[in-house]
């Protein structure tokens, strides 16, 4: 994988990225779009919030990626009684009858931790969110009088939008830490649906995951390659101007002529995208351009990641919050249709 020039290095890594994508597509069928977005997030080094119903393949998807990129994989289930220390350690009485303390999911893999999957994050208490958000932002954790580092960790969290009882809505500040919110839906292709139900290949997840070629990428080199992509892929002045207009339009849609049916646009948006959100969007757009073999970002690259990187950052008036998924998608689509480039 090591080559002498940055261009050839990126070309090699692009081939590996596409190989990873292809391998995951073999075991998780009918999810090409989420797989592309997760690939982008891996190389843009951003955390991902998965949104989807129960049993649609979120865990399988993440395990397949984990096998492909190598490194450690940990998973926790969000419950109402989950406490922050449950992520760090757990205590038990050993066979010797004495109490023991073992590392929790966050510490178990040490610096090898590559993917941390938090299932149903909205069932966990805000205290847990708080710890996780710090780990996400700083990739460090202080425990047992020691600073632990997770330089290669990506957090993939999941939330079930259907059930609302005994859940804690993730605050906007917490949502903003995620680079993307990726919807995982049941495939609508009948052939794919039939395969998922009748093809015995998909019945045993462990055996299915073994079909993915292991260690296609080296998880400990992803930070370096991610940085190289950001430095090599250029954004022209025209594109910067376009991105800036998109940003302003998320803050004040009506000023840019964006209008949704049956929505009071002056009251809809309380807060548009944050600077961090736009920065993450551009990082993701650069990776998309790279994956498509380009050395410069095009508006299409922004469009490819626009919904996934910005929809969860928008803060709507409480009266519209119940419809946020639908309204966010509609609003962002209208913004893209309204703002011209160049």
């Amino acid at each position: 994988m090591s080559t002498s020039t940055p261009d050839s290095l990126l070309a090699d890594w692009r081939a590996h990225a596409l190989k990873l994508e292809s391998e995951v597509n073999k075991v998780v069928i009918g999810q090409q779009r989420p797989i592309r977005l997760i690939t982008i997030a891996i190389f843009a080094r951003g955390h991902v919030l998965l949104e989807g119903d129960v049993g649609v393949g979120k865990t399988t998807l993440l395990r397949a990626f984990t096998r492909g990129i190598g490194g450690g994989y940990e998973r926790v289930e969000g419950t109402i009684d989950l406490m922050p220390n449950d992520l760090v350690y757990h205590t038990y009485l050993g066979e010797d009858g004495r109490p023991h303390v073992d590392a929790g999911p966050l510490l178990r893999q040490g610096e090898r931790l590559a993917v941390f999957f938090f299932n149903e994050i909205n069932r966990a208490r805000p205290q847990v969110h708080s710890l996780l958000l710090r780990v996400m932002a700083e990739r460090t954790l202080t425990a047992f009088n020691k600073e632990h580092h997770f330089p290669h960790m990506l957090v993939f969290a999941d939330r079930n939008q259907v059930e609302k009882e005994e859940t804690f809505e993730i605050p906007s500040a917490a949502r903003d830490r995620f680079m993307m919110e990726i919807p995982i839906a049941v495939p609508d292709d009948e052939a794919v649906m039939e395969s998922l139900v009748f093809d015995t290949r998909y019945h045993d997840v462990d055996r299915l995951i073994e079909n993915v070629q292991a260690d296609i990428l080296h998880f400990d080199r992803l930070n370096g390659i991610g940085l190289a992509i950001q430095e090599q892929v250029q954004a022209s002045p025209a594109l910067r101007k376009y991105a800036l207009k998109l940003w302003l339009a998320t803050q004040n849609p009506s000023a840019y002529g964006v209008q949704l049916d049956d929505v009071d646009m002056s009251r809809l948006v309380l807060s548009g995208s944050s600077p961090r959100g736009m920065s993450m969007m551009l990082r993701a757009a650069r990776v998309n351009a790279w994956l498509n073999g380009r050395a410069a970002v095009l508006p299409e690259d922004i469009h490819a990641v626009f919904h996934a990187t910005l929809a969860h950052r928008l803060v709507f008036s409480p009266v519209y919050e119940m419809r946020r998924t639908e309204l966010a998608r509609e609003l962002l689509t209208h913004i893209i249709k309204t703002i011209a480039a160049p």
Partner: protein
Amino acid sequence: MKRLLCLMLLCCTTMAQAEIIENDPRIKIRTIEPARDVGYTVGDVLTRTVILEAPSNLVLFDTSIPIAGSDKKRRGKGSGIELRKVEFEKHPGATSNRYVLRLSYQVFTTSVTAKPAALPAEYVKFGGKNEKSFEFRIPSWNFRISPLAVFGSVVVERDMSDFHGPWLLDDTFNRHVLHFLLILCAISLLGLLYVHGTHSWLPRMGGPFARAYRDLKKIPATAEGLAQAVARLHRAIEATAGNSVFSTTELIERKPAFVPIRADLERFFALSRAVFFDPSASPGIEHPMDWLKTFCRRCRDCERGLK
């Protein structure tokens, strides 16, 4: 009865001969009278020219020429025909002299009905060596004076004079109404054309690409001009599609009329990317400005449904 008639005829002939005899036969007279002898009213000027041809030994005395300002009176009353101007020319010849008198009269009388009048007879004197001076009479000329206005009610059918044209009805009001309706009709027609032509004078003209094509002709063929031209075409595409467009497929989905130029649209978007976003990309167009003009014209044709 016959005798009586013969006697009267003889008397008239004798009187006529006596009149002719009054003028010396050696003097020849020719007059040029006004073109018409009716239709004169107060203030009109009538000019008659009298040409007299006399032997060399006879001389016309200047003192006998009529004097301007004279008005012949009859029974103590003026005739209302005043001599305004007199011009006199003398043209001596080898055997005879020619005298030209140009007399201008002005009418100073009027009447509520047409009445007869006459330019009066004038007298000039001739004389010479061994010749006794004598008067020569310039004959009068009759004409009719017309009234300034029609007096009383006029029955048109009885006025069969061919000196005036047909009587015309007053159509001023009708003309004003006609002009107003014509203007109203023209404005309505223009309005209809404008509306049905989607804000253009004629349907399917003045569309986004037609306007862009006019603008493109004014843009210089420089690097800045190229960016300006591509941006101008983007505006036309957006106006056509009704929203921002980033690919050929988006435009064709909304406007299938552009299917025939799909390949050109692909090249345009490739050129746009090279100009604005990715300078390393090559759209493979040798003279982009010329190509853009051609492309825009083809888009305009699609817009007008010509392809």
